[in-house]
């Protein structure tokens, strides 16, 4: 459900009960409070940047900022196989996203358009599986996939796709529901056929929702840690996804914090940029279907 933002009436926030002042000042008080909060949310990641630029010989010094800023952590990063890990993470995230796309679209479209028997059951099933998390079923997942004998990357693609499927179906169903059937019927009347109507009319209109679901899946698969850790051990580092590769920096004789955070930045920044694109849609997409 694509909600439109109506101008909010003047409601004071509960924690900050400012006395009733003239509008401009109150707005600025709110703005400053918001800026402070924004900075707090940024701080840990800024710290990651500072750490990534800290030379190795300053790791033992108790200072907030390093004396000498250096890019050496970034330049020496690739020799430890990080490029391969990025490729692996990309494979897994892209693969999972493609599978989700291929599987969720038909299911969501059908659920949105047809009130078939078992529709409620299907929706409930989807809702229920959103509650199943990989961590809770790790033993089962590990034993099942070790019996399948698939290469770990493929296993991870399938696992990530399956666990993000419910969310995608949920969002897409809501988006498809909000597109009036009349548009499709009009297109079919003009001779487009069902599939034609689907591709020419419905999909472009649902594109924001589709892209939101896909980016969400991509990010979830990119950041996934526990199942990746469990299934991709024993692979050479370049075959392990990024989260696992970064985790490997821990536990060396001296925890390689500088490289770890440099790698962390590489892993995090693309995702933040991606997420920024869907930020607006997320507000509506997330609780669509449950909040009308």
């Amino acid at each position, binding site marked *: 459900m694509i909600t439109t933002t109506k101008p909010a009436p003047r409601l004071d926030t509960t924690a900050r009960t400012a006395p009733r002042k003239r509008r401009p000042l109150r707005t600025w008080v709110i703005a400053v409070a918001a800026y402070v909060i924004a900075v707090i949310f940024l701080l840990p990641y800024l710290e990651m940047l500072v750490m990534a630029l800290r030379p*190795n010989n300053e790791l*033992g010094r108790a200072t907030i900022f390093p004396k000498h800023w250096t890019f050496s952590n970034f330049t*020496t990063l*690739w*020799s*430890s*196989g*990080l*490029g*391969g890990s*990025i*490729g692996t993470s*990309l494979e897994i995230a*892209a693969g999972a996203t493609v599978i989700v796309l291929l599987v969720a679209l038909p299911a969501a479209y059908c659920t949105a358009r047809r009130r078939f028997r078992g529709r409620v059951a299907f929706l409930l099933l989807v809702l229920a599986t959103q509650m199943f998390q990989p961590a809770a079923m790790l033993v089962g997942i*590990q034993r099942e*996939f*070790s*019996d399948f*004998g698939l290469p*770990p990357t493929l296993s991870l693609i399938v696992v990530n796709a399956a666990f993000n499927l419910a969310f995608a179906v949920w969002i897409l169903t809501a988006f498809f529901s909000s597109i009036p059937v009349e548009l499709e019927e009009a297109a079919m009347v003009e001779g487009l056929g069902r599939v034609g109507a689907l591709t020419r009319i419905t999909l*472009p*209109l649902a*594109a*924001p929702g589709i*892209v939101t679901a896909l*980016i969400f899946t991509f990010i979830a698969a990119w950041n996934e840690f526990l199942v990746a850790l*469990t*299934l991709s*051990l*024993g*692979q*050479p*580092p*370049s075959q392990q996804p990024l989260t696992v590769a970064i985790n*490997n920096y*821990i*536990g*060396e*004789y*001296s*925890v*390689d914090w500088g*490289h770890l955070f440099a790698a962390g930045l*590489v892993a995090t920044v*693309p995702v933040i*940029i*991606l997420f920024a*694109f*869907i930020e607006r849609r997320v507000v509506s997409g997330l609780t669509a279907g449950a909040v009308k």
Partner: protein
Amino acid sequence: MDKKFARRICGGAALAVAGTLALAACSSSSSGGSSSGGSGATTLKLVVADYGTGPGNASAKYWDGIVTAFEQAHPNIKVDVTSIAWTNFDQQVQTMIQNKQYPDITEGDYFSNYAQDGLLYSASDVLSDPGNLLQTFKQQGTYNGVQYGMPFTTSSRTLFYDKKLFTQAGITSAPQTWADVEADAAKITKMGDVGFGLPLGAEEAQAESLLWMLGDGGGYQTGGKYTINSAPNVAAFTFLKGLVSAKDTEPNPGTVNRTDLWQQFAQGKVGMINGSPALIPIIQSAGVLQASDWTSVPIAGKTGPLTDTLGVCDNVAAFKPNGHQAQIKEFLDFAYQDKYQLAFDKEYDLLPATTTATKALTSDAVFAPFLTALPNSVQYPSNTTWATVKSKIQQTIGLAVTGSPMTELSNLQQIATTAS
């Protein structure tokens, strides 16, 4: 509006993805390592522990050197090296095996339950001259009378102390007994440094604990049976608990690993710590302590220095499920050559595991005393339950110095006896 938005998103997303792809592409071409493949070639999966202190002397480098030379001499065998940090080694190998992604060769810790499950080749299956391996360590690698664990490198432990801090605190002699340790640690703590560095964190708690148990004549086993909560062991931990509550150690020893404390010792912030020769390069690379500022002596026991030290040996194990026996044999024969053993030992200040390499080193002044101590060393238990007991020790024994030693040690004893 939505169409434009959608296009904007797609464009941006494509850009982000393309950017990362480009990054991956130009860097994956520069990542080295041996590639698997070639028609008719067998690929061996080698999983090793990392003994290095940083990327400069990472163990992967040492093995890459051997692998390059080996692959030149044996063109139809390729070797993939995976190096894992010690803290994660057991767990990762365990998970690999759970996932049925069996390695061919591992170098690091060894557990006889792999032999029990029929997963391993015996030493004579994969080595031309198994008799060359140090006999002292044969027992710990043996299961049901057959040797499966092949020692690769060994080390013994000593007590390192910071002479500079000692002089500042007015201490004139090296600590020899527990009472000395207590007194010296108290003096150093007054100066604001850590008196005794006690690493009981998950990384190697089993080693540190054993050193203290030995100090009172205890140990993990007596006559082949587990006696973790024996009176001498409880006494040892009661002593340690006193040390911790007097704040003469670092806070919360159960959460601190040897690696962190060794770094701090190298920075001159710790008075005493149990170490092995591997601590020496860490001190040298930190550049804070001069050679005259520290020294090592036998570990302090309750009434005097220990005569039996802890002899740790890291093992090579060869795995059956991939069926690469012949190739494994060629590789191990190659890797166990004296020149590689000695290179490893010089790199990491550890001790060799073959008789011939040991002979070559007896003339070396630095290594000689450690070598002579080896035959008398005490080792970890070698039965099939040690894997479970060890992981429980690593996780929980830190509680014995903040809580009740008797309770914690009894818990461990119970796990040891029920696991068998």
